[in-house]
């Protein structure tokens, strides 16, 4: 008998292994939560040095980004991410990892068209659509405020 695309799709669903969500979700929660706790500790530290809330928060982000880049360079970030999944993807450290891993990866093609051009391969859409959304919001806000 000839197997149709529909039948084959059913066959695939029967054998497809499920993601181990019972493990993945708690791990994402715990590791993502811990990264946020580190962020909170950094914010508290900077606030104790008399920075205002927003400045302290910005400094905390910069330090998290730096640590993430270092872990990426040492090859540790992806080792943690393999288990943490969204726990290392969703925090700002995941954004930094996507930038530094692209930069590192395309070093072999040179610093202009390799690192320079490819650094935004994964992070580009985040900046593009984040900025666009904020501009759309800005237009609405400007006219209705």
């Amino acid at each position: 008998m000839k197997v149709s695309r529909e039948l084959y799709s059913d066959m695939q669903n029967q054998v497809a292994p499920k993601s181990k969500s019972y493990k993945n979700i708690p791990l994402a929660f715990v590791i993502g939560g811990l990264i946020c706790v580190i962020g909170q500790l950094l914010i508290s530290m900077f606030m104790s040095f008399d920075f205002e809330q927003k400045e302290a928060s910005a400094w905390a982000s910069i330090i998290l980004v730096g640590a993430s880049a270092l872990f990426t360079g040492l090859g540790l970030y992806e080792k943690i991410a393999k288990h943490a999944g969204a726990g290392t993807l969703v925090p700002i450290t995941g954004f930094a990892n996507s930038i530094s891993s692209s930069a590192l990866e395309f070093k072999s093609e040179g610093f202009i068209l390799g690192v320079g051009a490819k650094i935004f391969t994964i992070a580009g859409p985040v900046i593009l659509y984040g900025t666009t959304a904020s501009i759309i919001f800005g237009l609405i806000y400007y006219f209705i405020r």
Partner: protein
Amino acid sequence: MSNGIKRLQTPVSILSYASVVGKKEGEGPMNSYFDKIFDDSYLGEDTWEKAESKLQQTAVLTALEKADLLPENIDLIFAGDLINQCTSSTFGLRPLEIPFLGIYGACSTMAEGLITGSIAMSAGVGEKIVATTSSHFSTAERQFRFPLSYGGQRTPTSQWTCTASGAIVLTKDVQFPQVTGFCIGKITDLGVTDANNMGAAMAPAAADTLVRWFNETGNKPEQYDAIVTGDLGIIGSELFCDLVMKQGYDVTSVHKDCGVMIFDPETQDTHAGGSGCGCSASILCGYFLPKLRTGELCRILFLATGALMSPTLTQQGESIPSISHLVELIGTVNKT
């Protein structure tokens, strides 16, 4: 020859073969079968692309060395790989100065090379012809997926591209093992769009080729000691056996898959198994051909499987067309 199927009047003999692999493959269940295991994934080079080129070159040189041959003794080489414009082959083989024909069949390249090599041999193009292919985890990863140090989670259906290469020297003299027939695959597509589920995409191609072979030749699965698929992996293998069963042949007891054999999914975290041109090439050259030579295996079918996709077409939402070529091989016992 009809519909891509050919039984060779004069079989084509295999003189020599070699398999070289990377560290992870060398730590897997098949580690004692390979000729060379490189512990350094860069093979002493400074980029992944150069490393794969060297891997393929090493496989060819090792196969030649095992038969006391030099590159100048080779009349023609068929080679291909996964990297854009088949550069692992062209750059790796550049210093050998062997007449070269590049081929592309994604992970089915080893079978494609054996078939084109056998055709060339039968046509009297040369006396010593080489077929080779390679793949490297890191070159494939950066071309098809994400940067190596990017923290993404692999899906349970994903397969691990092997850092591996295999090379086979065909000869005009009578030797065993021999290529006794082949079936050229058709481009098959049952609509799988998930590039992380290559086994499922390729299984229909392998099933189609195998069923066509059985129907055309009248042979039965029981006549083979092993029916070896390339890199369907755990999920693809199950689908392959199902598909073949639906068409009236039960191959479950003789089916082996190189992608399943090369890694231990429990300890090596390879999910659905190995993949890549080098996966089936290194297992064929390291495990099956030696067993055919000693006579431990009499007759096998080798069906390397390839997913003919590119990141561009996947991003355009296309499904993944696949192909599988079949080669019939006989061992020493069949000497008559």
